[in-house]
């Protein structure tokens, strides 16, 4: 039973375009995350966010930015995509102060 929803499932775009991915959770959590899973299956945290603070992994390029309208939604915008941005982007959520995170199915991005 999926409680973290992501759209689209798959997106193909060209270098330099702007893309935006959506994430919604129905678990009542107050903290959300974005992870990047590369071609070697390595998962790396990009952002964690709740209404109190945004924590950014310092290795994340500035063209990436999270956007939140409320605690149930956290979108990811990429301003000008690069070929190395091709990956699966996974959204997750948890309660603030709790370690257990629940993941969505991911959005696969292919940059041509």
């Amino acid at each position, binding site marked *: 039973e999926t409680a*973290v929803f992501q759209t689209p499932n798959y997106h193909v775009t060209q270098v330099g375009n702007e893309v935006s991915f959506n994430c919604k959770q129905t678990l009542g959590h107050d903290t959300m995350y974005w992870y990047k899973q590369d071609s070697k299956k390595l998962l790396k945290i990009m952002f964690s966010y709740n209404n109190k603070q945004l924590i950014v992994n310092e290795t994340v390029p500035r063209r990436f930015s999270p956007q939140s309208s409320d605690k149930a939604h956290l979108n990811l915008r990429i301003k000008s995509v690069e070929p190395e941005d091709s990956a699966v982007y*996974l959204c997750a959520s948890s309660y*603030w102060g709790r370690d257990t995170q629940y*993941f969505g199915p*991911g959005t696969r991005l292919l940059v041509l």
Partner: protein
Amino acid sequence: QQQVRQSPQSLTVWEGETAILNCSYEDSTFNYFPWYQQFPGEGPALLISISSVSDKKEDGRFTIFFNKREKKLSLHITDSQPGDSATYFCAASVNYAQGLTFGLGTRVSVFP
């Protein structure tokens, strides 16, 4: 440098056997260790987790053994089933707000 290491990279067992997946970590401040199961095309799903104050956690056919002194842990899957065929990720965290640090995963194949 990989903060969380997993071995083996892949593992094949017969139905009914016990699969043993290993994980080690560098940062002694890590205090929470979840294992996630991921099927192709899906997001990771939390399987079982342990905190650093425990040395064993059991949930059905899945058991985590934790050795804090050696900074090692292992996941045992007893009575392996073909449906257990998936990639298993060991993860660690020291601060929930900074997200999880993942290993590269172990791909498990269970043959009937």
